[in-house]
């Protein structure tokens, strides 16, 4: 009798175990994914290759800036979300090119590429240790993606086994300004 149980039960238990492992163990992408570093607005977060501090979030419907001697105005179907932040390389020179606005619903907005040549854009220039940069990350998001968002900052868009700062942003952010001039923004 026990022999029959052993013959039938062992494969059954093994199959159940394997199915459970396949379903519930984290996948490769998750195991080798970003290492989160959680923080709040105004808090200095020290990651593996950089430190970051986000100070202020601004919303605007239009942005104006001077680039290559030309006045440029950008509008959007949603809203521009600006995060004024400070970045510092540590301990070696690096580029922090993975800034993402993650909405409360989970959509990930990469910093807008529509602002080439704008002043004090973070994430584009190389960071040198001991020479912190203060500037702005600019995101273009739908209005419903503003409330309760998280700012993700990492060396690349898809960090693998590397720091990703997760900065919780305010749940409510007021009404967007109709026009902001990036050349006149108070960065300090």
């Amino acid at each position, binding site marked *: 009798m026990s022999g029959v149980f052993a013959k039938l039960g062992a494969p059954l238990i093994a199959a159940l175990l394997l199915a459970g492992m396949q379903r519930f163990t984290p*996948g490769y*992408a998750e195991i080798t994914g970003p290492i989160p570093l959680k923080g709040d607005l105004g808090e200095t977060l020290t990651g593996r290759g950089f430190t970051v501090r986000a100070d202020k979030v601004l919303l605007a419907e239009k942005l104006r800036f001077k680039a290559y001697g030309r006045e440029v105005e950008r509008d959007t179907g949603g809203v521009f979300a600006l995060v004024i932040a400070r970045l510092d390389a540590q301990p070696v020179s690096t580029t922090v090119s993975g800034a993402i606005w993650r909405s409360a619903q989970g959509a990930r907005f990469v910093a807008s590429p*529509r602002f080439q040549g704008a002043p004090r854009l973070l994430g584009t220039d190389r960071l040198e240790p001991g020479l912190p940069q203060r500037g702005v990350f600019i995101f273009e*998001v739908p209005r419903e993606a503003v409330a309760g968002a998280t700012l993700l900052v990492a060396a690349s868009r898809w960090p693998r086994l590397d720091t990703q700062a997760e900065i919780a942003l305010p749940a409510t952010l007021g009404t967007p300004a109709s026009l902001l001039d990036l050349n006149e923004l108070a960065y300090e």
Partner: protein
Amino acid sequence: MIVSWLAGLRQAVSSKLTIGIGGLLALAITSGQSLLEALEPPTLPVLAAGASLDAGRWRIALHEASLTTQSRPDGPPAPDGTQFLALDLDIVNRSSETDNTFARIFIVDPSIDALQPNPIFWLMRDKAILSALQPGLRERVRVIWRLAPGAKVPERLRLVVNGETFKPRDNLFAAPGWFNRKPIAAASLPVAAAEMRP
């Protein structure tokens, strides 16, 4: 003696039968496959100009195709009289990620020899080259092909729109992604003549 001969015969017959049946099966399968391939491909649903189509990763609406002498939306006419084919469309990124794979959305089918490959996608909001589509934001885009010099100008532009499906865990990295790109609709747009600029 006779028994072993009989046994040998039986084995030979059964192996020959197995080979024969297997061969016939293989023949039937390959013939069926080539028959299926020879059949007319299923006709794609027609996408009307201006109608919005949900293609999984994107929602698009094709508006109009026209000939133009401008290589970019706000530029002056090309000096050597080169002509361009411009296609206006709306694209919404339905995924949850900023995306720059918009060149995969459609193909020109049948291909037109006069169109030079790798058209440029322009963001009409900026009159600048489109580099990324943010999730959930509708953008008007103009696609501009350069026409080969002296080429016969096409009268209609037939586009096949590709769709992709979302997979929460892919087979290799167990990461979410968009897969199985396949044609889901076709649109045939008349090519309007070049507008006369004063």
